[in-house]
């Protein structure tokens, strides 16, 4: 389970900016609860609070996972439309670093990154995206509905706003159970146009529920604004309902980690829900019908070789890619060597190559099993 989460839970004070880096890879202890291992025992653990190297590697894992999903979509045209988390890694990894294993997620369909960051098996995740028997959901969910209860995921709703309402329920359940855990829902800014969001925010506020509303504000849906609210700012909505709002630069992992720390402390302290708004610049490939790499396959050496940044979307890579920015920050402030960054990347790629192999080898579910598992 998440070591950092435990440390955070115990309230241990770790000096800010101090680098915690424990060896080449955070090897996970063998997990029980009957989980499968697709890629051996070496997994990448969820990042611990203030483990900036761990957060960077988690971001690399999230990015490389989605790049592999694109390759899968190129190789298997039936896989369907992808909603990739590319460009959101700084937000995702930094928020995850502030959570504990008991915290519960209700996510949207742009959620692959969160599952993998929380320790879901990437082999089973790829298998699910390909509709295979060994998928996380046994092939019943597909790329829009990845679910991993063991990592704290209760559902992935592709009904816009669905996860926001359900997370209020998870918060209600946790409060009823007397748990110290919190519920998290992440969603895009466009989701706030749905009526259920306003209702859900209201319920969370009046019942003071332990819910983190994480709004990944990437501002656009295709060529139009994804949110068409008459409000001046997104935060006007939660604030009108007496919910504390925190706005951070979602491309800056350090800033998100600080905002998330503040938000989580507020919620866990029993002070009610928080609306954490992470502002991002949408990745140019987010709205695509064909699987393509509009910004190219990620080259981490661009973190220190900025002269080589080129192409139609050079501005996004240079100014808005939180992964490149965080690698650059850690190298420049002496936290990590360039070699170490590249080595971490190789470890991730090796893990994902094995995961892909596992998924490709997994069979489709038996059509004879169609009618099973509708009721618990």
């Amino acid at each position, binding site marked *: 389970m998440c070591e950092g989460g435990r440390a955070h839970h115990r309230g241990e004070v770790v000096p800010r900016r101090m680098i915690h880096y424990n060896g080449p890879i955070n090897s996970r202890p063998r997990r029980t609860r009957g989980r499968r291992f697709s890629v051996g025992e070496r997994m990448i653990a969820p990042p611990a609070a203030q483990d900036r190297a761990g957060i960077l590697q988690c971001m690399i894992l999230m990015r490389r996972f989605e790049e592999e999903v694109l390759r899968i979509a190129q190789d298997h045209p039936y896989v369907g439309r992808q909603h990739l988390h590319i460009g959101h890694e700084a937000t995702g990894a930094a928020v995850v670093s502030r959570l504990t294993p008991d915290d519960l997620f209700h996510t949207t369909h742009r959620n692959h990154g969160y599952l993998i960051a929380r320790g879901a098996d990437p082999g089973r995740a790829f298998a699910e995206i390909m509709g295979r028997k060994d998928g*996380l*959901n046994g092939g019943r969910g597909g790329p829009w509905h990845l*679910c991993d209860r063991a990592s704290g995921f209760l559902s992935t709703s592709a009904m816009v706003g*669905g996860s926001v*309402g359900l997370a*209020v*329920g998870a918060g209600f359940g946790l409060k009823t159970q007397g748990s110290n855990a919190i519920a998290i829902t992440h969603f895009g800014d466009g989701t706030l146009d749905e009526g*259920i969001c306003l209702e859900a925010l209201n319920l969370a506020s009046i019942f003071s529920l332990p819910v983190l509303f994480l709004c990944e504000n990437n501002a656009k849906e295709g060529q139009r604004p994804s949110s068409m609210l008459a409000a001046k700012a997104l935060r006007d909505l939660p604030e009108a309902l007496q919910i504390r709002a925190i706005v951070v630069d979602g491309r800056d992992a350090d800033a998100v980690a600080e905002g998330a720390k503040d938000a989580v402390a507020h919620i866990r302290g029993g002070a009610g829900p928080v609306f954490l708004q992470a502002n991002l610049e949408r990745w140019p490939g987010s709205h695509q019908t064909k699987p393509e790499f509009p910004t190219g396959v990620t080259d981490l050496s661009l973190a220190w070789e900025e002269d080589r940044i080129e192409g139609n979307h050079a501005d996004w890579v240079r100014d808005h890619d939180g992964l490149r920015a965080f690698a650059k920050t850690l190298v420049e402030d002496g936290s990590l060597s360039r070699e170490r960054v590249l080595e971490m990347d190789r470890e991730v790629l090796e893990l994902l190559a094995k995961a892909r192999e596992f998924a490709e080898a997994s069979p489709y579910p038996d059509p004879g099993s169609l009618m099973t598992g509708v009721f618990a």
Partner: protein
Amino acid sequence: MTKKFYAQALIEALTDMAEENPGFALIGRGILGHGGQAHFDKPLMERFGDRITDPPTSEGAVASMAIGAAMAGTRMFCHFGTASFTLEAVNQLVHEAGVAHSMSGGQIKVPLVFHMYHGLRRGGAGQHSSSPQSMYANNPGLQMIMPTTPRDAKGMLRAALKSDSPTLYIDHGALLGTEGEVPDDPYEVLLGKADIRREGSDISIVATSRAVLWAVEAAERLAAEGIDAEVVDPRSIVPLDTETIVASIRKTGRLVCVEEGYQMCSIGSEIAALAAERAMDALKAPVARVARPPVPVPFSPPLEEAMMPGPDRIVAAVKATLA
């Protein structure tokens, strides 16, 4: 065994569950509506009032709150009041509660009962008289119970509360004041088992919810005229006891389906299809359906009365089938 009102039996099931399971939580007050039986909720309110959350008028989010809490491991009972209001939460019921277990590959359970009152209620007009059962039955993953006796109300609600799958309890206000024998101790009535409310040999009347009371009344009137009708109460629509229903149709060779919902794609349509698929050779006459005609429910009492599938219409349908 004591004679009790349906309203008391319903509250007993909730009180038993609250007593046994300290984690059991309820959303929604006024579980017995606003009629003459409303006060029977006292035993629950006095002992477990702190377990009941009184939500704002936000059906979609309230349904979400119940579903999310159930997914997180809290056993839930969520009272909606009028079934018409659940249409504000269809997305949550159908696309979240109904699919969660299957779509997660069995990882997620939704131990939750949604309770609502359906049907014509005198003056409900076009927006407060909904009987949405066939609409919900058209979606997989949701159990649906419609008990019609005090004994079944207590036993089936208990079975639904103990189930790890989401259940719609589609109730009718007119049942709350009916009386019957109800065991004092907790017991379960298996979901998916129909009840033969009256045995007969000439014709099968398959009725649901309040229409069972009308069907029994009609059968008694028919008996006085020498017609021996069998009344079958499926009690739960999902799961549906097709064996008992088909066996009754095969026995009598005639079928009348009765319900308060609209006739188009109704529960009765499903029963009629079942007869066509599995008892065609035994049928001696065409199947008849007694249900609401396709008219928005009118307010004016004689107009509302005219669309009610009550005993008169059932008697007429039976006679036409036997003619």
